[in-house]
């Protein structure tokens, strides 16, 4: 049984109010939502935002038509909610590098490839617009047209922000 099959069955049960089924959906997808929240918001806001995402998904389950995979639908709900949260709470301000993240990165440096740690730090330092596009395109695999719709910008802006992000990352990694 594939994850998509498991998801489909659990969505059906959860839609009828089954908390256990929804917990299984949560456990299968929480890591990806968490990393998205972590990259799009301050690290300190991520856990709270993840809770909001899953509560929203629970409330909207009845609107999930099953035309796409549940994971795809969930991810889109998460992206929309996180971007709105970011905008609403003024998170568009330049995010400070979080001490906790730095400590984790430093602690894990011996176990993880240097490039990974370095990129994590560098992504934290990206300007907000460039980071959003880099996260959505290179990390999450969205296309420029989709990103443009999510961020209410022109696809050309998405492309230029992505290029800017990559060049800035390269620059920071070189220092």
């Amino acid at each position, binding site marked *: 049984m594939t994850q998509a099959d498991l998801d489909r069955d659990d969505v059906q049960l959860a839609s009828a109010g089954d*908390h256990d089924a*929804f*917990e299984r959906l*949560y*456990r299968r997808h*929480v*890591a*990806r939502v*968490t*990393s*998205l929240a*972590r*990259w799009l918001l301050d690290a300190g806001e*991520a*856990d709270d935002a*993840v*809770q909001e995402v*899953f*509560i929203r998904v*629970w*409330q909207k389950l009845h609107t999930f038509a099953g035309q796409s995979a549940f994971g795809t639908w969930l991810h889109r709900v998460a992206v929309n909610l996180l971007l*709105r*949260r970011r905008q*609403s*709470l*003024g998170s568009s301000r330049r995010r400070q590098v979080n001490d906790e993240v730095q400590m984790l990165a430093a602690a894990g440096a011996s176990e993880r490839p240097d*490039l*990974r740690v370095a*990129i*994590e730090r560098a*992504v934290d330092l990206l300007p907000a617009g460039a980071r959003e596009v*880099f996260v959505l395109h*290179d*990390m*999450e*695999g969205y296309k420029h047209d989709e990103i443009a719709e999510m961020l209410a910008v022109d696809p050309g802006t998405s*492309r230029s922000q*992505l*290029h800017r992000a*990559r*060049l800035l*990352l*390269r620059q920071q*990694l*070189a220092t």
Partner: protein
Amino acid sequence: MSDRFTAQLSAYIDGELDDLSRARLESHLAECLDCTRTVAELRAIVAAAPDYRGREPSRDLWNDIERRLDEPEVVPINPSRPAVQPSSRPVAQPSSRPPMQPSRHRFGWRELIAASIVMAAVGGGAVWVALDGTVREVPTAAAPAPITAEQQNVEFADREYDAAIQDLELLLARGQNRLDSATIRTIEQSLSKIDEAITEARAAVQRDPANAYLSRQIAANMRRKLNLLRVATQAIAART
């Protein structure tokens, strides 16, 4: 390195260049070591990026989520009541939170329960969230007018809420000597964070009054504050 070609490198990596542009760039790459190195470095960044997906939360969030699954989805306004201007309400400043002071007023559990009732208006009716966490609907005499999108402001029962919070804080102040200092510190820090979140969301609501999401954030944080105080006072009661 050529700026003209540098601007095309991301599109080249993503396969978005047309045939002619790609052929020109590849000719340039055959001669330009800088651009070739840049392409290699950008490819490494792009290739590594998907590895950053998948990160467990800092703690298991499921219990918190499950507790909130069956909460009312939205706390909209009651259009029949006058709107409350967020700015008219004194906002607690985390940095200026006064130290907990004992009150002369004596509270019993009956008073505590009465004080900790919070009314969150839901449409034309109301929901009373009592100290024991039960939710009771309160019928209204007349059906409310439909709520428009512009009216997706939340009106909280400020007086009831503020009174409940104030009384619980007083009760906490009276009984805090029954809790250890680390617990008190944790409670105070948590209250400060919640106040900060409420303040920030209220400020955002002033800029965007029709934003129902922000209203939910305020409502959620008010509930958190009430719950935190409730748990704290219950802990004190258990040590009495």
